């Protein structure tokens, strides 16, 4: 917004006008006010990560001992992340192709339904499966009903892989669907006319165009799995996050060493993905002609079955399982919705505040990177984006230790302000992408022409900039809100005493073996997330809308 102020009002003021000189020199200076603000914000975002690394490096002799214990959990973390991202890459791409390019029955329904597993936090999903598999759970009963022995054990790598894949594949499905929908059919038609079969065309023409979408989605899944805490904790798979959580008070050296290793891993993967991006300029023409859907023929049956299985594992079975326990608790009078009112209000309040703050805080950076691109703004943007790569648990650990041990900040320890601060740093990147899109929604030509029609800068902002940017800002805020609703580890570590959210409520109930309460709270959380996802994200997305 300060950007608007730096540009001279008169288009051709002439060289004799001293004001024009001043305006020009201000515009070309490296450190404009906007960029300084951007850099400051970027520094704050990088703070927690920097603190973790600094603390780890100061460990001295302890560091060597701590690092000796890291390889096991590190190997398990890498195993799980690679497995889950590979699985979701295949699953997400396949489902995207089925729902956008074929004559799959009810494909418009599937386009929406297959995104819905996103509303389930993975730790809730894991809890639902465990609860469903205990005697009295829906999965247990279903096995018994068909005369099979229910699996005794639902733990470890296999279980974690299944649960995380089932709830994260939409991160690949969404970008790949969008890419497929925008891909001009003449490319694939050219492939056919130049002698390739439809399968060969998919491999040699379509897939290279989807590459960046698949890699981008796969990266999100990788980072998500890397920083996953709740599900692996419940499923007893010893990854780095589990070590960090378990040793955060008893063995701080190990905790910080593990957090640093996790950081290096996350940054390394992001760097790897960036360097692997194709050198080709992406084909960003949008499709105008309708695509003839691929006729599946007999393959309709296995395709439909695949969609049903994915949706079953990712949404229906967990909801049934949670619902069964909740209903049992409600009819027995052991739980009531009234008890969840306070946590629900708390959850909604911190989420809304975090969303609004995140959108506001990254807006200067978004305006700087889109309107006057500069290296310094990019540095700030990378710092914000990096916040997503840093596991929430690491951010929370850094903030908890920092406030506890630093007299200046100690008053912040265990306040909701610190909690919201952690959310903003962790999820600010989600707002940044939408904010940048929002800023681009006001093209320069439009800003210039509105300047000629409406000289008052403030009124211009209200009449032109804000209306055009609003959808992007709202969507970005929606994403942050949704992520905050589902967040667990940072909330566990940083919540003020007596301050419960739906996530911590579910966690506590589950740890006490109180499945009915966990089930009911989960359903409330899912209902809240589902409503928000629909209103703020899906309704605006191109993927679901009629093409």
């Amino acid at each position, binding site marked *: 917004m300060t950007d608007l102020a730096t540009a001279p009002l008169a288009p051709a003021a002439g060289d004799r006008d001293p004001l024009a000189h001043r305006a020009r020199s201000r515009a070309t200076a490296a450190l404009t006010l906007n960029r300084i603000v951007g850099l400051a914000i970027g520094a704050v975002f990088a703070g927690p990560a920097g603190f973790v690394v600094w603390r780890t490096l100061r460990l001295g002799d302890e560091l060597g001992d701590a690092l000796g214990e890291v390889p096991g959990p590190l190997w398990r973390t890498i195993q799980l992340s690679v497995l889950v991202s590979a699985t979701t890459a295949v699953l997400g791409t396949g489902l995207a192709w089925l729902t956008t390019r074929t004559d799959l029955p009810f494909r*418009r329904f599937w386009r929406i339904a297959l995104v819905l597993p996103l509303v389930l936090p993975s730790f809730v999903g894991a809890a639902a499966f465990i609860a469903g598999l205990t005697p009295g759970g829906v999965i247990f009963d279903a096995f018994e009903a068909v005369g099979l022995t229910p699996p005794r054990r639902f733990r470890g790598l296999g279980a974690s892989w299944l649960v995380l894949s089932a709830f994260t594949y939409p991160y690949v499905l969404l970008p790949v669907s969008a890419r497929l929908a925008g891909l*001009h059919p*003449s*490319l694939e*038609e*050219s*492939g*056919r*006319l*130049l*002698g*390739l*079969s439809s399968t*060969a065309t998919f491999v040699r*023409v379509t897939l*290279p*165009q989807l*590459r960046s979408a698949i890699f981008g989605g796969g990266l999100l899944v990788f980072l998500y799995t890397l920083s996953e805490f709740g599900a692996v904790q419940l499923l007893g798979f010893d990854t780095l996050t589990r070590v960090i959580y378990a040793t955060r008070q008893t063995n701080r050296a190990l905790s910080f060493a593990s957090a640093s290793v996790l950081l290096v891993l996350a940054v390394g993967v992001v760097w790897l993905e960036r360097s692997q991006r*194709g*050198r*080709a*300029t*992406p*084909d960003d*023409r949008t499709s105008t002609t*309708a695509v*003839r859907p691929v006729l599946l023929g007999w393959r309709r049956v296995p395709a439909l079955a695949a969609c049903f299985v994915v949706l079953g594992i990712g949404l229906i079975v967990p909801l049934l399982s949670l619902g069964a326990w909740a209903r049992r608790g409600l009819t027995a009078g052991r739980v009531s919705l009234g008890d969840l009112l306070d946590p629900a209000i708390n959850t909604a309040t911190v989420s809304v505040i975090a969303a609004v703050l995140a959108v506001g805080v990254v807006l200067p950076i978004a305006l700087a990177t889109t309107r006057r691109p500069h290296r310094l703004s990019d540095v700030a943007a990378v710092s914000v984006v990096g916040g997503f790569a840093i596991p929430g648990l690491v951010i929370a650990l850094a903030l908890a230790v920092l406030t506890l041990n630093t007299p200046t900040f100690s008053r912040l320890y265990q306040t909701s302000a610190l909690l919201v601060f952690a959310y903003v740093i962790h999820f600010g990147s989600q707002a940044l992408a939408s904010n940048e899109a929002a800023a681009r929604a006001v093209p320069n030509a439009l800003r210039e022409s509105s300047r000629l029609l409406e000289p008052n800068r403030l009124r211009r902002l209200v009449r032109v900039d804000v209306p055009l940017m609003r959808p992007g800002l709202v969507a970005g805020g929606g994403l942050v809100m949704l992520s905050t609703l589902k967040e667990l580890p940072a909330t566990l570590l940083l919540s003020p005493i007596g301050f419960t959210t739906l996530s911590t409520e579910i966690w506590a109930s589950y740890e006490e073996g109180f499945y009915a309460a966990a089930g009911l709270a989960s359903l409330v959380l899912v209902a809240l997330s589902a409503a928000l996802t629909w209103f703020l994200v899906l309704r605006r997305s191109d993927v679901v809308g*009629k*093409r």
Partner: protein
Amino acid sequence: MTSGPDTRPPGTGGRAHAGPGAVVVLDGVTVTYHDDDDEDVVHAVQEATLQIRAGAITSLLGPSGCGKTSLLRAIAGLERPRAGTISIGGAVVSSVPPRGAGVWVHPERRSVGMVFQDGALFPHLTVAQNVSFGLRSSGRKLSRAQRAERVADMLALVDLTGFADRLPGTLSGGQQQRVALARSLAPQPSVLLLDEPFSALDAALRIQVRAEVARIVRDVGVTTIFVTHDQDEAFVLGDEVVVLRDGHVEQVGTPDAIYRHPNTPWIAGFVGEANFLRGTVDIASPHHADTPLGAVPITHPERVRAAADVDIAVAVDVLVRPEQIVIDRGTDDSHASGHVSAVEYYGHDVRYEVELDDGSVVAARTQVPDLLHDGQRVRLVFDGHPVEAWPVGPAD
């Protein structure tokens, strides 16, 4: 037509290869569209029957939505016709029961090349990789050296030698279309299809690129079918022009035949500016019509006579092109006098609109030594070949 034997690679098996310059025959081809819910059926092409001359350039001309692109896509195999038969070089590639035998040859086996409106170059491949794309498909046994040679030949043909390692994103629109042409010609298709390939280019570039494309496809001698909504383009490039309207083939002929002797008033208006002068034809002397410009010779008296029934005089609309009208400055003559109501100066000629004294407006394109001005009194005289006339009444 030359067939360019020097550029033919060995081993083109696997595809129905009829050699460059195959004849394309369409018999009763109907193409329909469904919307997403398989509800509304739209007839894009209805019962099109056509023979496309081998080795020539044929323009499919029509307004947008007339079905010309659908027809092209049906020939390519990108649309499946609802009815009718298509054959390329004598081999049936698409035939629908009950009238046909139920034949369907996949697009990759038709030996058809196509250049799309947007070029559709593969953005992840270099220019050379794009051009060699069709040379690597199954069934072709070209060595690496043969492929490289062929790519070099094709790039030389389209005058883009030295661009081999560039990515499509770095090329201009005209260069991209030339690469697309090279890519589609590299596998030596029997038929080349062009789908409005110049529409994305700006006016000056467009004329240059289309002249170049015409030279190249004539050099190669491939049967070329070319879709456009631009009458200039259709006439300049086409040896033969097929006029389509609402999914129907309206007329097939040389550009000159279509311009001077259109089958219907609609075609007359679509392919150029047309004045329709109201006149009468006396059945006793049906070779000219009596119009405000005096007696105008007409070409198809039988068309007028057929409408005559019992009348001895038939009211007709007479097609007079603006360039068939001569403007005379004298104001003495009694008929066909009026005043200039609009002047459009083009340089090579001037277009005038003249409002006749009876209130009708006639357009004339002419070169007069001195420019006429608005409101000036003038007299109009017909001067040209015999023209078409249609009895008044039936629409179009």
